[in-house]
């Protein structure tokens, strides 16, 4: 497996694992509280829709000319990556609340209990919530699978990496039968943001006509440079935050 292919597999695996953890919380809440049959049917329905999207859009994207594909997909990936990185940096400095799976689980359970009694047959509440949860969390993964996969003409590798991540998270969820609280979600989101931003920058610039020094090997510099820059932002914002707290503490009231 080449460097860019390994980057593709790692990025898709991490992104998919993060989204799968969030989807698992929703499915567990409605499954435990309402109906496992309806929740799992909802999951199955959403997975069919997501797989169909990949199957239809994957070949359509790979049929585009490479320069068009790279500038459009690179641009989208960069915009998407910067969003992930922005949220991860803000969470790391405490400017945005961390995602708490236990809290999300409790909220879903309370909403499921308040939703009223179940009728005969498939519980529509559990089906809809599980379907929507998996579909919405999965759309981001489909986007990453398609953009990464199409750019490298390896939608298959991306789809396999996504599948492995879903299986790993599902296995962990089944084993502990509770939301996965110990997964370092923000660290994973930080890593995914760095990868998406790096690959988006590389492909976007190349698609726009720029030539990277060293060709594909430039990624070996772009990925660590993006990571170091994002960590530097965290360090600067933390220092600024602690300085403003100490100046507030000595300011006359």
């Amino acid at each position, binding site marked *: 497996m080449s460097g860019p292919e390994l980057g593709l597999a790692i990025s898709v695996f991490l992104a998919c694992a993060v989204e799968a953890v969030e989807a698992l919380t929703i499915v567990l809440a409605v499954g435990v509280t309402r109906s496992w049959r309806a929740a799992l049917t909802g999951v199955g329905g959403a997975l069919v829709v997501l797989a169909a999207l990949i199957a239809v859009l994957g070949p359509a994207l790979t049929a585009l000319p490479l320069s068009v594909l790279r*500038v459009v997909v*690179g*641009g*989208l990936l*960069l*915009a*998407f990556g*910067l*969003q992930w*990185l*922005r*949220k991860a*940096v*803000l969470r790391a*400095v405490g*400017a*945005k609340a961390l995602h708490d799976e236990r809290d999300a689980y409790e909220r879903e359970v309370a909403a499921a209990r308040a939703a009223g009694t179940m009728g005969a047959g498939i519980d529509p509440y559990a089906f809809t919530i599980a379907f929507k949860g998996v579909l919405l969390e999965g*759309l*981001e993964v489909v*986007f990453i699978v398609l953009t990464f996969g199409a750019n490298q003409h390896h939608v298959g590798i991306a789809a396999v990496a996504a599948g492995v991540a879903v299986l790993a998270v599902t296995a962990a969820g089944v084993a502990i039968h509770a939301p996965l609280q110990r997964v370092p979600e923000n660290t994973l989101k930080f890593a995914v943001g760095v990868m998406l*931003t790096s690959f*988006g*920058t590389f492909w*976007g*610039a190349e*698609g*726009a*006509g*720029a*030539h*990277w*020094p060293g060709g594909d090997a*430039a990624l070996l510099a*772009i990925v660590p*440079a*993006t990571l170091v*820059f*994002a960590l530097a*932002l965290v360090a600067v*914002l933390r220092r*600024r*935050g602690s300085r*403003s707290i100490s100046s507030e503490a000595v300011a006359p009231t």
Partner: protein
Amino acid sequence: MSGRVSRRLRALGAFCWDFVVGDDWRLAFGVIVGLVLTALVSGLGVAAWWLLPALAAAILAGSVWRGSRASR
């Protein structure tokens, strides 16, 4: 009926905007500006590979700076 359709279309539009643009539209706008500048500069035959990463770094720094100030 048409009210329901337009509500759904608006919801879809809002979802797509949130999906691609997210919390800070300046990030997406900056990416478009970066791609256009890179295409223009590389069209002149000048090395332009540094433009997009430099702009991405600047817009990310600006965005997190604003985000951290807004949270205080």
